């Protein structure tokens, strides 16, 4: 009960912040803006059905408009909060309004490919989503998974190499989960059977994968590049009709198979975790393994299985870097995304949708800085590069606060050694 009420207090504080930002953006971006320039929003990327091609509007008017919308939404959210109702929609509109007000100001005289901005956000978050889903699977059943980075990298490496050797994206896609699974088998064996500290283990596995892939990259992939490291890539598949839907279509339904698999993974994990027998048992062994054991659930077997599945999911995400992206493997090409995925997992409070939202937020901030950088900002590029990281820190400190992991996350289970 305490946790819930603390959340309410935080929600109220968040609402305050939102209202203040809404007013400020109305004033700064809307009222006090001098530029008489127009901002152009583009809504088409391809040959999808056109609802609206472009929207040209005075930057000042747009900022004002969105600012007012966000102020109104904040007010509605406050009223709903008072009445004890959910404030999700109103606060969503509110923050989007603030964002758009800012964007209309920042892009005065420029072109913002609105659909592309969102599509890019999704694409940048794909590996994060896979990684955090792997985290959900593993940590919900009580095994801390810091090895996401290593699982992603192993998936990227193996799928890149296999696709290159066999000239088959399909085979590349098939082996990626196996590579991730191999890493998580190590995690599972050492964490579950040998009860080794899982944080040490995760870190060490990352280092191990870095070491092995770097080593093999230099020893094999570079010298024999044309056979070992010039893999084919997956083409985007347009889902008939769906991809034609304005705005949404090109973002969601004109992607490579990996992205579609990702949708499947998210829905499947979310569904299974909360609606099925497996999910109930998984959450039980993550929260209170002794209780699960006492009703006859094989705690360690279930954990083992889940950690292996987690590895497969992350491994598949790794394939996104190679067969899903540029084909060739590049040394350390996951570039720390496994750790960002870990942060997204915690940020999202160990729930599938929470983690997805956190990953999308990061992807959005990342792509926004890229787009704004391209159309030109007075801010040095290095500071622009900080944006997604700072945005995460601000979101975590301002709006998320204390999070609670599954109670038994990280604790090995041995029968008769509870307490």
């Amino acid at each position, binding site marked *: 009960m305490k946790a819930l009420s603390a959340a309410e207090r935080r929600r109220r504080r968040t609402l305050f912040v939102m209202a203040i930002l809404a007013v400020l953006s109305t004033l700064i971006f809307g009222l006090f803006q001098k530029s008489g320039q127009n901002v152009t929003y583009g809504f088409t990327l391809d040959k999808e059905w056109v609802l609206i091609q472009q929207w040209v509007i005075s930057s000042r008017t747009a900022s004002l408009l969105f600012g007012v919308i966000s102020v109104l939404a904040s007010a509605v959210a406050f009223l709903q909060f008072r009445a004890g109702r959910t404030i999700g929609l109103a606060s969503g509109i509110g923050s989007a309004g603030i964002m758009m007000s800012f964007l209309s100001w920042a892009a005065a005289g420029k072109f913002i490919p609105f659909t592309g901005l969102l599509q890019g956000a999704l694409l940048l978050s794909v590996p994060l989503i896979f990684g955090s889903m792997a985290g959900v699977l593993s940590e919900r059943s009580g095994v*801390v998974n810091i090895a996401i980075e290593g699982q992603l990298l192993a998936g990227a490496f193996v799928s890149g190499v296999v696709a290159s050797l066999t000239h088959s994206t399909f085979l590349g896609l098939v082996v990626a989960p196996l590579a991730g699974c191999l890493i998580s088998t190590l995690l599972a064996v*050492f964490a579950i059977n*040998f009860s*080794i*500290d*899982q*944080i*040490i*283990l995760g*870190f*060490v*596995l990352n*280092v*191990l994968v*870095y*070491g*092995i892939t*770097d*080593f*093999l990259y*230099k*020893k*094999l992939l570079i*010298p024999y590049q044309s056979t070992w490291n010039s893999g084919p890539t997956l083409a985007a598949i347009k889902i008939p009709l769906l991809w034609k839907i304005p705005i949404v279509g090109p973002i969601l339904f004109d992607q490579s198979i990996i992205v579609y698999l990702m949708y499947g993974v998210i829905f499947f994990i979310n569904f299974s975790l909360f609606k099925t027998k497996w999910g109930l048992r998984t959450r039980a062994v993550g929260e209170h393994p002794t209780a699960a054991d006492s009703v006859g659930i094989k705690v360690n077997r279930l954990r083992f299985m889940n950690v292996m599945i987690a590895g497969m999911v992350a491994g598949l995400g790794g394939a996104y870097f190679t067969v899903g992206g540029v084909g060739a493997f590049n040394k350390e090409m996951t570039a*720390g995304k496994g*750790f*960002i995925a*870990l*942060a997204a997992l*915690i*940020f999202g409070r160990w729930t599938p949708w929470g983690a997805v939202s956190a990953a999308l937020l990061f992807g959005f901030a990342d792509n926004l800085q890229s787009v704004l950088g391209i159309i030109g900002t007075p801010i*040095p590029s*290095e*500071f622009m*590069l*900080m944006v997604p*990281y*700072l945005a*995460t*820190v601000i979101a*975590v*400190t*301002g709006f*998320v*606060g*204390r*999070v*609670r*992991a599954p*109670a038994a*996350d*990280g*604790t090995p289970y041995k029968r008769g050694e509870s307490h």
Partner: protein
Amino acid sequence: MRKLTIKRPSLRALTLPGLSFVLAMFFGALLIAFSDSTVLKHIGHPVTFIKSAGVAIWQSYLALFEGSVYNPSLAKPHDALLSWYPLSETLVTAAPLILAGLSVALAFRAGLFNIGAQGQFIFGSIAASYVGFAFHMPIGIHVVVAVLAAIIAGAIWGGLVGLLKARTGSHEVIVTIMLNYVALYFLMWLLGTTRFLRPGRRDPISPDVLPSARMPHLAGDNYRVNLGIFVALATAAFVWWLLSRSTWGFRFRAVGANAAAAKTAGISVPFVMTAVMAISGGLAGLGGAVHVLGSDFSLTSGTAGNFGFDAITVALLGRAKPMGVVFASLLFGALRAGGGTMQANTNTPIDIVLVIQALVVLFIAAPSVVKWVFRLKNLKTTGELTAKGWNG
């Protein structure tokens, strides 16, 4: 304070680390053998295969040793001791690692997982180098001021994390991961500003720190080993004292083990979190100072290398105990120093060192595996390090 009787380090206590190292080297050897094209050529002929594999492995590991401990070919007629030059290199690499490792270990003992040593190290390097090249001060004083600046800079960057956690409950793992990136980009930006550019250069590389701000060499100018290693050892002793003999350390451990009970007994948990992260950041910052003032002298975007991340492995290998961190850092320092020579002499990629490091930590953490491999019954295992997952 747990064990108040002084324990003599027994040889048996070293059995596990020793055997773990042997096992890790064995797997490293496999990797060397099976990725060497000349060795692989003989794969059809077992005898030649084993022979050539043996040669490849022997040469690589010999070079590793020659690069980290002793290399007779370096001796000069007038100075036979020069063959120990590699050992000096090992110490040079180990010094910053010890400090960064202590930073992670200290936080660990207080129940906090500091992944941010990298960022704190960066801020320490920035402060130390800036004070080192931009100001003129008397010899002696200059080093001290530069070091203090680094400690303060690291402490602020680390303390920020503790403060955020204490105030808002935001998880230190997320915040430190993110702040590492922020620190790196900040450094990159800084290196493009005129203040940090080398006169006459546009490359992002700062001027060298002035001689007055450098750590004095310990064994003459032929060896790079410098005061930094003593600073690191003294700091390790200090951290040991802090944790096990001081009231602050008592509080840190209490909060780390059970924050609710510590609070009930009147210990201020928010204060402890902030203090621990600040001290932890200061230690990593000091590591940055030792690196810049001791051996690197200039600041580049790669100054911090991987020290802050290796620090985590080192702290884990050292079981979050100061002495453990020192030994782990020496081992890692040796692997790092020798790895370069190995690559230069045998073209075995230095990345094998990462593999060996990872495996050593893994095996030490899993004594049961080592016991099983070597068929040992009663192997003495050191105290378990228990991280407490995310809720800790």
